[in-house]
């Protein structure tokens, strides 16, 4: 097998090339390379207890100034994937070119994080920046993580520091190479920053899935008790409205992500689903943060995209920030899963709770 046929080796060659380019005379201040990663220790109690280390996503982040008004941003991730012979696979998470045509107004083309809420717009794949250990539950089922397309963006406009993001691109069912039909996804997101450290936002996302397929970069999957092979394969209209409130001060941190989803099929009509994530933290001094989180997702039994799902997660945690490049999070969490599934010829509606402790070391360079 040729070396370039191996995805991991391709990424190594790419990263090495970027490091060399960043040191080429005259380009030191134009191209910047950062890396982010994390390692975790997880312990789960219950009927089948376990404890294990895991190597998290490793993120190679590149920015470059291509001309006075044009910049490039790339984010390349290597993560565990059981379908690979090495158990790791690379992916392009973001790759975009931005043209700033006026002060605080830009046109962006490429693969972006769909700006439906604060979390997806701000945190991306670097766990160093996450306030807690993992993403909200909605990110596994309802939030379209990525869009490949065209984005108009404005920010810090006027006294309220108004911002807008309008995105037209490939939808949930697409890949980075192709999308079927003439049904692009649409995102319209708006926010204001009335106080320093505060951002309040609203967004609307629409996509039409011709065959209810789960594209690799959407982050979507059906509920754990439903396989993709068995999932509905007809047309589905997907509407998502999101509201975000974020306020990060020197002493307190608050983040609330709420979303309402309507998925519409000819078979079962409109399924109404919702999710809400709340994070509240108290910063003590420069390096210590104690926090609590609550996360809930409710997907109705008439939904044919996610299928019936009811999950609640509560957690308490502590974050120690050694510096702006490394932090340690310790999080105790309890999760309740309420799913309809067949067990010994009977329909069961409860699974869990699962009590666990997770420790994450997140770093950047």
């Amino acid at each position, binding site marked *: 097998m040729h070396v370039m046929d191996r995805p991991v080796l391709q990424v190594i060659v790419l990263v090495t090339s970027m490091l060399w380019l960043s040191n080429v005379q005259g380009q030191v*201040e134009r191209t*910047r390379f*950062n890396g982010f990663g994390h390692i975790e220790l997880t312990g789960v109690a219950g009927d089948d207890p376990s404890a294990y280390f895991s190597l998290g996503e490793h993120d190679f*982040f590149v*920015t470059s*100034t291509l001309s*006075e*008004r044009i*910049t490039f*941003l790339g984010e390349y991730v290597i993560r565990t994937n059981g379908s690979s012979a090495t158990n790791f696979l690379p992916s392009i998470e*973001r790759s*975009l070119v*931005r043209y*700033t045509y*006026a*002060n*605080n107004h*830009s046109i962006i083309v490429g693969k*972006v994080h769909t700006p439906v809420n604060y979390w997806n*717009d*701000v945190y*991306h794949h*670097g766990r160093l*920046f996450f306030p807690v250990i993992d993403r909200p539950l909605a990110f596994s089922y309802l939030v379209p993580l990525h869009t490949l397309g065209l984005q108009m963006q404005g*920010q*810090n406009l006027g006294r309220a*520091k108004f911002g807008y993001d309008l995105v037209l691109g490939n939808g949930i069912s697409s890949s980075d190479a192709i999308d079927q039909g003439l049904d692009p996804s649409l995102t319209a997101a708006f926010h204001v920053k009335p106080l*320093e450290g505060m951002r309040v936002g609203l967004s609307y996302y629409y996509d039409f899935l011709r065959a209810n397929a789960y594209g690799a970069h959407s982050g979507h999957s059906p509920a754990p008790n439903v396989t993709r092979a068995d999932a509905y394969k007809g047309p589905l209209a997907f509407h998502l409205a999101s509201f975000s409130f974020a306020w990060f001060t*020197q002493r307190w941190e608050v983040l609330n992500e709420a979303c309402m989803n309507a998925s519409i099929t000819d078979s079962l009509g409109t399924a109404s689903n919702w999710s809400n994530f709340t994070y509240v933290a108290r910063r003590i001094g*420069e390096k210590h943060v104690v926090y609590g989180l609550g996360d809930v997702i409710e997907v109705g039994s008439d939904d044919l995209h996610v299928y019936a799902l009811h999950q609640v997660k509560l957690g308490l945690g502590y974050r120690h*920030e050694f*510096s*702006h*490049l490394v932090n340690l999070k310790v999080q105790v969490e309890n999760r309740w899963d309420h799913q309809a599934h067949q067990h010994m010829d009977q329909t069961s509606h409860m699974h869990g709770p699962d009590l666990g402790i997770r420790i994450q070391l997140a770093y*950047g360079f």
Partner: protein
Amino acid sequence: MGVPSTISAIVLALLLGLMNCSAQYQSDAPSLSLVGNGTGLTQVSPAELRSLFRGERSVWPTGRQVIIVLPGSRVEWSERFSLQVLGMSRQAMQRYWLGLVFQGRASAPVFVDSAAEVLSYVQDHPGAIGMVPMGTKGVPDAMLIKVVQ
């Protein structure tokens, strides 16, 4: 206490209060000078200054791209800069800017290791702004931007 003594005490208290305010104003006055190249600005307010160094502007009135120059962690006045200009510690400033660049909402600032490097970089790069301690030698008048209370 008689009326004259009471009035004297009140006047003295007012005078002491005013002196305290004045001293506090002086101690809050920035000890750093703002320098820029090709920005089109002659003066800014403290709020505008804070907004600039938070990356909230991308293009100057002259059409030049905004380039932020910041003191690196080895600069002895870097903590003073981050507290006075941004109201945050140096570590918080580094965390803020790393996060902003990672979001893709601002171009990365340039970190330098001395006031001389701030001046040199700003002089050589149209669109760049930075701050240096007041009294730094060799600052051309044309580069100074007033910070007006």
